[in-house]
């Protein structure tokens, strides 16, 4: 199986490892297949390491240990052709559709630069046609968009231009870090629909980084739930969200404010201790201090990921019985989209 992106045992530590430090990512290993386009969500609260992961995957930051390979080339040492390929084929969509623009340039600038840099077009006319097509693909009318300054467009339009820009390069993988968290609810659905369409029609894989479990459930096939840099639970998104098995995932899911006044907020919240976890050294499970089911052994050693069913694993001693410990690549418990397409998940 050809692999597009391979994250191998990546650890990121901020601060001096000898003294007070923060483990932002703890031995994370997963892959994104190059064969079938996938849509993987990475969720977690602030400080869970999800943005650190995005920064490492985009090559902005070199991890403390571990490697990231893109099509077999180590991304943090690659240069020349391999680096060019990576920068061409992996694109990013960021959270804030206001800050990615230089207010002094027309929005065209964001689109013409990649066309020139990656020599996407042989002539100016061809370049314009490419830009127009990619704007249309995200539901924008080129004649209403080009030639404008960022402040003349709405937040939703600006965010869709950044999607159009990513699409322009015909990437294999898009890393989207909170792409809809600053967009109005009425536009959120439209942008997510665009992303899903690009995934299905253009075969682009997505790594969707978010704190919003509802939208993660809406668009993705598989999910990775991070808690303070470690994987709490992972696998098929339907299994994880509908029937969470890790106490942290249970807390997250029951904290979602449902748009239904008849459903009481947090009515099934297990009495998890409030507040952010403190940073003191902990040899056991990172969630132990907040966990309502904490047992003595939780404080002794961190639980491995237990694979309780084919498409799901959770890092909790409560799930040990009848499960096998999952070693290495967590993608083993991912359900492939091709399989899911025939299942109950498609409408």
């Amino acid at each position, binding site marked *: 199986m050809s692999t597009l992106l391979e994250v191998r045992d990546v650890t990121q530590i901020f601060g001096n490892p000898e003294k007070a430090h923060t483990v932002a990512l703890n031995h994370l290993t997963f892959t994104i297949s190059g064969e079938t386009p996938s849509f993987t969500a990475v969720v977690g609260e602030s400080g869970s390491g999800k943005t650190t992961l995005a920064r490492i995957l985009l090559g902005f930051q070199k991890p403390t240990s571990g490697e990231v390979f893109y099509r077999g080339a180590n991304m943090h040492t690659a240069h020349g052709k391999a680096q060019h390929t990576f920068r061409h084929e992996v694109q990013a969509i960021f959270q804030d559709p206001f800050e990615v623009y230089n207010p002094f340039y027309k929005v065209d600038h964001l689109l013409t630069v990649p066309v020139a840099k990656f020599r996407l077009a042989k002539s100016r006319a061809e370049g314009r046609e490419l830009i127009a097509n990619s704007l249309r693909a995200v539901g924008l009318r080129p004649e209403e968009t080009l030639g404008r300054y960022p402040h003349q467009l709405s937040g939703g339009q600006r965010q869709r231009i950044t999607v159009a820009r990513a699409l322009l390069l015909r990437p294999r993988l898009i890393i989207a870090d909170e792409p809809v968290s600053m967009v109005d609810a009425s536009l959120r659905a439209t942008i997510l629909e665009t992303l899903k369409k690009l995934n299905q029609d253009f075969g682009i894989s997505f790594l969707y980084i978010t704190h919003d479990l509802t939208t993660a459930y809406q668009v993705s096939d598989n999910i990775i739930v991070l808690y303070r840099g470690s994987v709490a639970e992972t696998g098929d998104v339907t299994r994880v969200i509908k029937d969470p098995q890790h106490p942290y995932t249970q807390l997250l899911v029951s904290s*979602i404010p449902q748009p239904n006044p008849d459903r009481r907020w947090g009515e099934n919240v297990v009495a998890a201790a409030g507040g952010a976890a403190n940073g003191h050294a902990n040899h056991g499970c990172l969630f132990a201090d907040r966990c309502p089911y904490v047992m003595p052994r939780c404080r002794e050693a961190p639980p491995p990921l237990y694979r309780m069913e084919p498409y799901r694993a959770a890092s909790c001693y409560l799930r040990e019985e009848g499960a096998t410990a999952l070693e290495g690549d967590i993608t083993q418990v991912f359900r492939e989209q091709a399989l899911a397409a025939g299942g109950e998940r498609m409408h």
Partner: protein
Amino acid sequence: MSTTETRQPTTTQGSEVLRVSDLHVYYRSRLGTAKAVDGVSFTLRQGERFGLVGESGSGKSTTALAIMRMITPPGQIEGGTILLAEKNGQSRDLTKLNEEQYRQVRLADIAMIPQGAMNSLNPVRRIQEVFSDSIKAHEKSVSDAQIRERTAELLRMVGLQEDVARLYPHELSGGMKQRVCIAVSIALQPKVIIADEPTSALDVVVQRQIMQTLGAVQQRIGAAVILVGHDMGLLAQFVDRLGVMYAGKLVEVGNVRDVFHEPLHPYTQLLIASLPTLEEQGVFRGVPGLAPSLLNPPQGCLFHPRCPKVMPQCKTIVPELQEVRPEHWVACHLY
């Protein structure tokens, strides 16, 4: 002040604390006049939780700022009244007060919990000093010992330890800072608390804890809350009544259950349908089209260019907000 004679969205429970009538806030520039708030009316009763929802630019935050009299030029309150009930049964029009008179109203009668708590606390002053400043600005004869005692009590009310008072803002997490802001807002037992997206920078677990804290202290001091936001899920879980704003106007007001069960305005219907739920996957229903430009709004109903149920009269006649079900108001020609 009875409901029938003035014809504006209200409910019959509790005594009235705030009545906003025909409020207009305009921003004038050389490009024209943007009617950010254009004829908004609603009433707020004691202990009530009222939500204002709308997309960016719908005027929900401007309405909140106008009540706080914090509109800055080129924005201006162009018309309307904001009546605040007084203890003696009379009411005062907040739009008529001068700056010093209004300073006395802020925090004492109407308090605001700002959007970004992290940015609203002075980084070089301890939390205790925020409370001291706030209380001393309104109560001249209070002693430092009394203030410290009250600060400790307020911090406990929002679930913080009293020694937080000695800390600086950077020593607190985002959720703790937001709790401090809630504690400050209730320091003088205001009648109305305005919360403008108080949890937009926080994640879901902390968000729920903060909103539950706000709900608990609000009930304890009997204040009414205006919650401004665009997260329909949060509003559904917190408020009693909901007002939906579109392009500077209230287009629907009603009991939160009625609005969610039977949304009357096509915009509200689309907005609720667009919400992602945990019931279905891969189904996306956005609201088609774009919000209108406030500088160059369409004729007639402002929503008509995007409305799936548009009729000929929608293009010329502006629909009035009217009560079409008991305590459920809508501005739409369909009713």
